[in-house]
């Protein structure tokens, strides 16, 4: 481990909180999706950091990191498909303007 584990964990918590801040604060739906990508990356950093530390079965961390990346890509696809459908119907992609369940 080139640098102590704690520093990487703090880095990933910071990344996680920046992502969460983006989700809570940004009005643009695509902005929210981008911040979700950030949160998933923070999770990945933790996975890889811990896989370097525990010797039980070291490849578990990296395998799950791959699964997280695949699912994040999937989430991004479905999310953007919904955004496009929303945009086509409501001509707006600002979260607070989309407040009707049925239109």
């Amino acid at each position: 481990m080139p640098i102590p584990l704690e520093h990487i964990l703090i880095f990933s918590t910071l990344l996680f909180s920046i992502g969460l801040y983006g989700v809570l604060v940004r009005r643009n739906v695509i902005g929210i999706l981008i911040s979700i990508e950030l949160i998933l990356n923070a999770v990945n950093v933790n996975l890889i950091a811990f896989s370097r530390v525990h010797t039980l079965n070291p490849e578990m961390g990296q395998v799950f990191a791959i699964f997280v990346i695949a699912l994040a890509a999937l989430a991004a696809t479905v999310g953007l498909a919904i955004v496009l459908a929303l945009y086509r119907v409501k001509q707006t992609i600002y979260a607070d303007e989309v407040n009707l369940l049925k239109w």
Partner: protein
Amino acid sequence: MLILASKLFIYAILFLSLVAALGVVMLPNLFHSALSLVATLIGIAALYLALQAEFIAVVQVLLYVGAVMTLIIFAIMLTHRIGDQTVPQKNQQSLPAFLALAAFVGMVSTLILQSNWPVSETVARVDALALGKALLGVYIFPFEIISVVLIAGLVGAVVIARKD
């Protein structure tokens, strides 16, 4: 001397990724925030390289920067009204959110610093070969399920986005 240089280098990468992550959240123009997300991803890939996880670093660059970012930028281009600064990009709850998150970060980081993590130095490096064997050996079941989920997601996305 070299170890010190590599440590400094890693800290620099971490700091730059954080700055880019802040850029993702703070930049008003959505295209600029997408580009700073690309910078964050590449910074995180560099961190993986420092942690000797090359396969994950390269897969991350390939999948995230190659595929997901292309998707996001396509979506940005297809929806207009992102460039104009007149529309406020942040809603009202920016201050309370910031305070809550600052408290959260403070709490978690003190927790991390106090607890002692069982660090074992001698860890076998997981290269692509070992990862492949694990993926198709122990984790064969989730590996197959992922492909089913990806296909379902793909079909779903096409159905939603299709202009009928």
